[in-house]
């Protein structure tokens, strides 16, 4: 098959593909406002439907074979797996689900590239075409195993320390060179089936290995990056089949993943390179802040009284909120406080949680109106006028070391300046440092009190206490 579309396509098919591409773009455009976003998703889904119809009726080489039975079987099986999974999944587990779906998309592109290579055995592919096919295979495979590892990490099935070791980034660099070298060799010389399978295996290993050292607070970056890889693999597969719609869809996804990757890196003030090297935190920096100081503790009734008599309260949710499934109780507390004239807001740091926008989805699930969710800048300007900040399962995003300890691994990362508020309460299970393993001087700050315990249990206690006031 040529890269350029040589098959004569009918007018109807071309029209379907064109409308499909427009629906994708228009759908993404409508995603830019919460009011129209749902419609946008529906448009994109319709675009996908048109694309599939187009693919089913497009005139193809060896026409007449069609094998519609195989196609129907595959589509039914996929739908039977996909729909129930999407209906059942908890909002707190969204990062895992997105990772899995992402990996499957990459795997699909990878499979297409393998077949293309095997079918073209013995014939000479042009260099351009060969480059496209091997690129599809590589990116698809990396996205596949990378996403599966990201899923396993997010789901707590694999701990970072199980899959990584000192100097892992050196191994990754070597692997990357091997993969690229191998790819160039195969592009120029063509490959036997054994070599193609060898290249596939190396690519799969690289995908796994490149995600291995990245963990914890860096997950939003890596998920975004894998998202953009899957988009690229779909776009490259589109070039293999000379299908413009696949190209457009893939590139849109690639663009979306790339933008999110950049935004997440900016939110942590780190370069992508720095993230990929991995090993965030855990350095020798922890010591400085906690010498001799003791964190003050509070009990639920103290905090309840403080909440009740505040004029403005700001919740700062983090991954701990998701783990404790505490979003609904937070909303309950919010309702009671609002009923008593307390102004309640939420401060959402861009990298709070394990994927971009994770906290927003959880709070939306709990019926918190989105105008109450403040982003980093708005929250920081509102904080000096806030009476009480309640931190629920967030840690690194409220760490003052980011501003005043040049030695800290998170130095320079924009954080929520919660210490500018009049009082801070930290809901936390224990004094252990956050996911990144960095001690947080905020816990020892004059304004801070700690309320120990599971976030959900603590907030339930607060709800009960506030109701009694």
């Amino acid at each position, binding site marked *: 098959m040529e*890269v350029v579309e040589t098959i004569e396509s009918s007018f109807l098919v071309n029209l379907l593909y064109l409308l499909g591409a427009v629906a*994708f773009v228009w759908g993404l455009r409508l995603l*830019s406002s*919460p*009011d129209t*976003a749902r419609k*946008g*998703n529906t448009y*994109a889904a319709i675009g*996908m439907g048109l694309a*599939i119809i187009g693919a*089913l009726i*497009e005139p193809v080489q060896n026409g007449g*074979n069609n094998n519609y039975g*195989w*196609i129907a079987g*595959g*589509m039914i*099986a*996929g739908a039977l797996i*996909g*729909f129930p*999974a*999407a209906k059942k*999944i908890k909002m707190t587990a969204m990062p895992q689900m*997105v990772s899995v*779906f*992402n990996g*499957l998309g990459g795997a*699909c*592109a990878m*499979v297409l590239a393998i*077949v293309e290579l095997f079918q073209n055995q013995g014939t000479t592919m042009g260099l*351009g075409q060969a480059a496209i096919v091997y690129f599809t295979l590589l990116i698809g495979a990396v996205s596949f195993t990378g996403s599966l590892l990201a899923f396993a990490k997010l789901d707590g099935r694999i701990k970072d320390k199980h899959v990584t070791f000192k100097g892992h980034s050196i191994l990754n660099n070597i692997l990357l060179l091997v993969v690229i070298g191998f790819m160039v060799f195969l592009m120029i010389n063509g490959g036997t089936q054994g070599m193609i399978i060898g290249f596939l295996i190396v690519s799969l290993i690289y995908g796994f290995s490149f995600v291995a050292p990245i963990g914890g607070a860096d997950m939003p970056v890596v998920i975004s990056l894998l*998202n953009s890889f899957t988009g690229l693999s779909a776009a490259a*597969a*589109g*070039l293999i*089949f000379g299908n413009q*719609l*696949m*190209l457009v*869809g*893939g*590139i*849109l*996804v*690639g*663009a*979306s993943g790339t933008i*999110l990757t950049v935004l997440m890196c900016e939110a942590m003030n780190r370069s992508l390179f720095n993230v990929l090297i991995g090993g965030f935190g855990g350095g020798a920096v922890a010591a400085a802040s906690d010498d001799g100081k003791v964190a003050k503790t509070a009990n639920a009734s103290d905090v309840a009284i403080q909440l009740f008599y505040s004029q403005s309260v700001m919740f700062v949710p983090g991954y701990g909120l998701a783990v404790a499934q505490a979003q609904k109780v937070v909303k309950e507390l919010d309702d009671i406080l609002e009923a008593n004239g307390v102004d309640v807001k939420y401060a*959402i740091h*861009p990298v709070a949680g394990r*994927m*971009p*926008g994770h906290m927003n989805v959880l709070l939306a699930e709990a*019926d918190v*109106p*989105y*105008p109450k969710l403040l982003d980093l800048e708005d929250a920081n300007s509102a904080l000096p006028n806030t009476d009480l900040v309640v931190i629920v399962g967030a840690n690194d995003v409220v760490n003052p070391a980011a501003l005043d300890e040049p030695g800290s691994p998170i130095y320079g990362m924009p954080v929520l300046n919660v210490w500018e508020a009049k009082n801070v309460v930290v809901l936390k299970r224990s004094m252990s440092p956050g996911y990144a393993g960095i001690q947080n001087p905020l816990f020892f700050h004059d304004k801070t009190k700690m309320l120990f315990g599971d976030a959900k249990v603590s907030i339930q206690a607060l709800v009960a206490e506030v109701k009694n006031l």
Partner: protein
Amino acid sequence: MDTIVQFFNGNLLLIYLLIFTVILGFEVISKVPTVLHTPLMSGANAISGVVIVGAILLIRQSDPTDYFSLSLGLIGIILGMINVAGGFTVTDRMLEMFKKKKAKS
């Protein structure tokens, strides 16, 4: 060098499409607010399921006795369809929650 020139000339329209789509993609997506980043990601994910088009074309072009291509194509369709069906459904579920909120407040 010759191959590159040849490739460039032969695929000029595709290259135009590629570049303009990249620009368009960045323009459209950079307007999506932080609140919607998770739905954006899962929606984009569903769109990347467009690879299913390739899998369908692959199966349709395959010889009915070429079980290698048919099996891998089948796997491709299943993977792509999970992505498409699951991705759009889960995105809709999320966005439904956002919409409901607006009506209430």
